[in-house]
């Protein structure tokens, strides 16, 4: 069975069905959306079970020619880098769908859920695409549902936020399209065959100058999507204006598209060009770590705080990839999953607080731990994970990254370390000002914000996932190791790194 294709097609079909439902039929829409997301999750679990962790290459590939004359095909599969992102996507979207169904006001209805399903299909396609054109197709495909979700159901400034989100992304991605076309045609000059399959392009030597230019074209698109400082202009507006369920999905899953592209496409296809871009990209990532942390520290609302912290955390992941070190890349892949879970949990807490108290403004809240002890415990747990306290899941990932970066460029690790310190500052600020101190801004000591069953159903799975990774990170790394080593190896060879650092020999 083509399980990978099935995993993409279930949400796609569900979204079409949802759009066809009459707007008033919310009961059926809920049932359909929940069923579809659970089925998608189940299908992705099947893919995980069938996964062979010793293989580095793309596996369970479904290949179907689309436009053979220009070498474009439907080619999807999973490898060690994408397998956990697929699982992350299906898991977070299942929880997101549950959260959306809990609060489905009349004006949202089936279309809202349909667009969420469409976004899920786009992201799953992106994480499994084995063909560069297909990668681009899904890259753009997911943009529209997210943009429409922001436009139609966002906050007061939703129009501006949505438009900036779209325009930023499009500028980068259309130049990526030109780079994709150029890559395919240049590869054809070398090999004689026109193909956009990533595995075919990996073997092509473009030469240092060409590879640098092509990689730069891709990098711009990735940098905007990640976002890397200074391309983050869309982030605060989009994150703060989107409906919070959508913000969870944006921060937890969509933000991984850029870093995934960098590791899955950028490094392996253009290894000769990586050397020239290590310094510029690493410096931008470092600036992002510090700048994002400082912004998070001073952020007025909880939502912006978590949003900016996301900027800093993605800086870590980019750093882990671009220094082309096995351990750092391993950490980056792990951290993609970790960040997805932690940021989803953090936004979920914000969602519950905002729902219970009517405000996202930290300074107007205080002492909620008194009336909402269960939420306080969960929140404390999430806070610990977000600041990467030793023993938490994020600690493992950040440790891998920092250790790897230290091996290559010690000074970068020192600067990045500041980000870890600052994370403690801003996360504790959020926790303290809302949970501790005198009771402020709520009635009944904030009992209205207490975690109830409907909240627990979203938070508890996320916390369990964090615990699992914290206790047993090896269970993830086992799967990712082979592919990650293979992804960074060509760049390491091109950079003439010591042989003992390279995990794969060609």
């Amino acid at each position: 069975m083509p399980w990978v294709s099935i995993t993409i097609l279930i949400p796609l079909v569900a979204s079409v069905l949802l759009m066809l439902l009459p707007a008033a039929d919310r009961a059926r829409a809920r049932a359909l959306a929940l069923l579809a997301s659970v089925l998608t999750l189940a299908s992705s679990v099947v893919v995980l079970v069938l996964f062979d962790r010793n293989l580095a290459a793309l596996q369970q590939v479904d290949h179907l020619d689309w436009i053979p004359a220009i070498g474009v095909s439907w080619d999807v599969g999973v490898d060690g880098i994408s397998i956990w992102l697929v699982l992350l996507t299906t898991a977070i979207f299942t929880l997101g769908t549950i959260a959306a169904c809990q609060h489905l006001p009349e004006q949202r209805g089936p279309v809202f859920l349909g667009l969420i399903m469409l976004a899920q299909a786009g992201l799953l396609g992106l994480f499994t695409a084995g063909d560069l054109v297909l990668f681009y197709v899904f890259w753009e495909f997911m943009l529209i549902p997210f943009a429409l979700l922001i436009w139609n159901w966002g906050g007061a400034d939703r129009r501006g936020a949505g438009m900036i989100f779209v325009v930023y992304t499009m500028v980068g991605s259309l130049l990526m399209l030109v780079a994709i076309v150029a890559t395919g045609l240049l590869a054809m000059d070398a090999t004689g065959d026109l193909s956009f399959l990533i595995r075919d392009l990996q073997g092509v030597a473009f030469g240092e100058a060409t590879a640098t230019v092509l990689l730069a074209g891709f990098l711009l698109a990735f940098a905007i999507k990640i976002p890397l400082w200074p391309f983050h202009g869309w982030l605060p507006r989009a994150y703060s204006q989107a409906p919070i369920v959508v913000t969870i999905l944006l921060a937890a899953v969509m933000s991984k598209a850029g870093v995934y592209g960098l590791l899955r496409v950028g490094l392996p296809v253009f290894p000769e060009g990586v050397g020239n871009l290590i310094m510029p990209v690493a410096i931008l990532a470092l600036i992002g770590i510090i700048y994002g942390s400082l912004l998070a520290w001073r952020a007025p609302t909880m939502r912006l705080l978590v949003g900016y912290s996301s900027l800093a955390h993605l800086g870590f992941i980019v750093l882990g990839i671009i220094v082309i070190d096995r351990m750092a890349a391993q950490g980056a892949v792990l951290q993609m999953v970790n960040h997805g879970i932690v940021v989803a949990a953090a936004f979920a807490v914000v969602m519950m607080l905002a729902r219970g108290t009517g405000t996202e403004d930290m300074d107007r809240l205080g002492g909620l731990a008194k009336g909402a002890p269960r939420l306080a415990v969960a929140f404390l747990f999430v806070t610990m994970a977000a600041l990467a306290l030793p023993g938490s899941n994020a600690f493992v990932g950040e440790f891998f990254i920092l250790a790897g970066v230290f091996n290559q460029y010690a000074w970068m690790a020192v600067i990045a370390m500041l980000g870890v310190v600052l994370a403690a500052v801003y996360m504790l600020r959020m926790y303290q000002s809302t949970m501790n101190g005198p009771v402020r801004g709520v009635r009944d000591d904030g009992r209205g914000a207490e975690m109830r069953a409907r909240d627990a159903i979203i938070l508890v799975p996320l916390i369990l996932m964090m615990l699992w990774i914290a206790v047993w990170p090896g269970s993830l790394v086992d799967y990712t190791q082979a592919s990650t080593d293979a992804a960074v190896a060509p760049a390491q060879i091109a950079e003439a790194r010591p042989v003992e650092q390279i995990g794969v020999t060609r």
Partner: protein
Amino acid sequence: MNAGAALTLYVMAAVTVLVFVLAVTPLRGRMRRLPELVGLAGLVATAGIAVAQWGERQVAFAGEVRIDRFGLLMTWVILIAAAATILLAWGEPAAAGRRPEFTGLVLSAATGMMLTVMSGDLITLFIGIELLSVALYILCAVEVARERSLESGIKYLITGSIGTAILIYGFALLYGVTGTTSLAGIAERLGSVDGLLDQPLLVAAIALIVVALGFKASAVPFHMWTPDVYQGAPTPVAAFMGTGTKAAAMGAFLLLFTGATQQASGDWRGLIGALAVVTMVVGNVGALLQDNVKRMLAWSSIAQAGYLLIGVAVGTLAGAESLIYYLFAYVAMTLAAFAVVILREREVEDGDRLSAFTGYGRARPWAGVAMTLALLSLAGFPPLAGFVGKFLLFGSAVDADMAWLAIVGAVASAVSVVYYLRVVIAMWSPQADGAPAVRRLKVPTPVAAVAVAGAVAVVGLAIWAQPLLDLCAGAARALILP
């Protein structure tokens, strides 16, 4: 030499005459629809003949008319545009009393377009362009009681005449340089006679022809008439001009440049490339400023002409192939968009204003979906036909070492997203509080059919692109046959 080969043209001419005869015949009751039905039947029959004739080149009238894969495939584009135009004008209240003439004029314009793309000679090419232009001058002004329609007709007449004058100048010079009016002859002379390519007159001829065709294709800086004419003309006519005329003009570009003066491509590649760049930039920026959807579509058609011109500028067969594919995609998405605008115009006063579309997608989801798909495709979002077309065009530019065209095209497309999506957003956003419910009338089935068919084609042409691309490749090869 076989005059029967031009059967498609005879059928079109005969049907046109028949419709004009019916126009002066008093028809009552159900028979009132007869001219339209005859016209549609004629278009279908011609399309059938075009399919049957698909194959190696046949010539008629001593090579004046060439029936080959290129002409026949372009004929299909034109027939689709003409049929859609007749359907879009179905029951058009504004044209009441003049519907038979309307159909007849659309048919004669379509005949002119077909003659243009099937021409094997400068003379037939010129006659074709004139035939389509004259019919369109009248069509623009067909709503004689409406001032804007008349104004639109006059404006188009004046700019069109200037274009024609320049075109005939260019042709005269080209004849002077090569000593022949036959397209195949020109290609042969340019290839074989020494020193011909260095003639300054040749450059002058090429420049004049580029300018003249630029008028017809509404390329910048010869585009000024387009927004006014589109806005003033009856909307089905605007749709026809945006699709059929564009296809014919692009066909003429391909015949004259990629085909006949291929040898002199060094002279015109940069020129047409520059034209494409300016057109893409100005068209997209102009569209940004519009709050009238018809005007926006007019500016968008200018911008789209810029993308299409990439396929000419590269001067390769891959470019021609991509251009022809993109024409199919462009016709589908433009017709779908115009169909939805027409629906809205029939329901409310000033239905072409952006504000008239607020909440329309929610009120009428299928029209909303059709319009959304059409506009997303125009913006080049994957996996729609517009994306595949742009992908091919940009690819042909990169392949011909003109990557700068692709880069400008990419940036221009990013800009275009703003104004296309502005309509999409309006369609799906809720009505302002207290605003009256979106007014909906009974949908004229033919108009709805065009909208839905266009939207389906936008998806279908992308997913099954390969079969059409094979046809396009055959058509492109026919351009350079001796």
